[in-house]
C-alpha cells in the first residue's frame, strides 16, 4: 500500500452527516443566519486571544442579567447581558430602533492549557479591545476600533493586504487585514507587528 493509499484509508473514516439545504429560499434563510453567526463570531474573536492571562472562575452564572458597555460600529452601546448557563451569554441591544441579539462566550487558557469560561465583563472588555472590519453595501471597508471609524477601502496593496497602526489611550496595536477572494476580510491584530513594522501606516481617522 502506498502512503497515499494509507492516508486515504485513514481519512475515509470521516463523513459529513449534515443535511445541506439546497432549496433557494432555504439557502437564503441560512445565509442570513450564518451572517449573524459570523458577526457574532467576529465580535468574539479577541475575547479569548487576550484571555491568556485570565483567571479561573465559576462557569455557570445561572441566568444573572447585567448591563455592560460595548463599542459596536464605532458607537458606545449599552447591552443587556444574560448568562445562558452553559458558559455563554446573550447580548441584547438597540440599534436603529430595533432590538438585536447576539450570543457567544469565550474561554481563557492558562499556561497549562486549561480552559475556563470568561465572565461577561471580561468578554466585553476583550471584545472592545479588538477592532472589527466590515464592508458595507457600497463596497466601503471600515475598521471600527472603539470610537474610531477608519475607511481602509483604498489602503489595500496589490496583494490585497492593508496594514495600519491603531492607537487608543496611548496603546498601540498593529492591524493586518486581508481582502480575500471570497469577499471576506480576515484580520489579525497584535501588539507586535506580524510583518515588517515599516509596512504599517498610521490609521487615517475619519
Amino acid at each position, binding site marked *: *500500500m*502506498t*502512503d*497515499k493509499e*494509507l*492516508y*486515504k*484509508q*485513514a*481519512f*475515509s*473514516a*470521516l*463523513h*459529513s*452527516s*449534515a443535511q*445541506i*439545504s*439546497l432549496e433557494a429560499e432555504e*439557502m437564503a434563510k*441560512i*445565509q442570513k443566519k*450564518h451572517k449573524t*453567526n459570523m458577526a*457574532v*463570531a*467576529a465580535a*468574539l*474573536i479577541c*475575547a*479569548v*486571544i487576550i*484571555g491568556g492571562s485570565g483567571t479561573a472562575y465559576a462557569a455557570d452564572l445561572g441566568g444573572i442579567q447585567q448591563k455592560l458597555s460595548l463599542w459596536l460600529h464605532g458607537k458606545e452601546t449599552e447591552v443587556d447581558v444574560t448568562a445562558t448557563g*452553559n*458558559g*455563554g451569554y446573550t447580548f441584547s441591544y438597540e440599534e436603529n430602533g430595533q432590538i438585536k441579539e447576539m450570543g*457567544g*462566550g*469565550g*474561554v481563557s487558557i492558562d499556561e497549562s492549557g486549561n*480552559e475556563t469560561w470568561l465572565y461577561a465583563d471580561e468578554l466585553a472588555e476583550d471584545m472592545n479591545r479588538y477592532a472589527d472590519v466590515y464592508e458595507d453595501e457600497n463596497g466601503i471597508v471600515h475598521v471600527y476600533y472603539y470610537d474610531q471609524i477608519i475607511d481602509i477601502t483604498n489602503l489595500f496593496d496589490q496583494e490585497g493586504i492593508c496594514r495600519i497602526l491603531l492607537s487608543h489611550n496611548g496603546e498601540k496595536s498593529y492591524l493586518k487585514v486581508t481582502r*480575500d*477572494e*471570497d*469577499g*471576506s476580510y*480576515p484580520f489579525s491584530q497584535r501588539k507586535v507587528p506580524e510583518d515588517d513594522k515599516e509596512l504599517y501606516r498610521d490609521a487615517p481617522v475619519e
Partner: protein
Amino acid sequence: MRQEVQELVRLYQDNLFAAAFNVCKNAEDAEDVVQDTFIRYYTIKKEFDSAEHVRAWLFRVAINRAKNVNHTFWRRNRLSLEDYMETLTFETEESEDLFEAVMKLPEKYRIVIHLFYYEDYKVSEIADILKLSESNVKVRLSRGRSVLRETIERSHASRDCLSIKHCHAEQDSLLNKQRHAEQDSSWNLKEE
C-alpha cells in the same frame, strides 16, 4: 461556467468536510464550514473556468472559513477530538494511528499534507489554493512528513514498551522487530 450546487454537494461534501475537519479538528465546526462554503458558492456571482477551478475554489473557501473558526476560539459544548474519534470506524489500527498522528501535527502542516495525500493536489495547486509559494508548500510538506514520521515512531515505541510488560519479552522483541520492518517499509512518507 457554473455547476449546480446539488452536484457539488454530491461530489465534494465529504471531501470539504475532511479538509475543514483537518483544519479545525471539530466535526460540528467542520459541518458549519461546509454549509457556509456551499452558501458562498450559491451567492457569489463568479464565473469559473472549469470544474477543477470550482473544486479548488471550494477548498480554498472551506479552508479559510475553517481557519476563521479556529481563530475565534468560540467554544460550544464541543465533543473532544478523542471522543469524536471513538465514533469513527477505522479499517485498521494503523489507520487510526495515522489519523491520530496527523491530528497532532501543527495546522499549517496538516492541511498541506491533507491536500497532497487525500486530494491528490500537486504542490503548485496547493500553493494556489493556500496562496503560498511553491517552495513554502514544499517546506511544509517536508517538515510535516518529518514530524509525522517521528510521531508514528514514538507511538509505536510506546506501544512496544507496554506490550513487553505483558508478554514474553524475547518473543515480543522479535515480533516488534518484524513489525517495525514492515511499517518502516510501508509508511515512509516519501513524495510519490
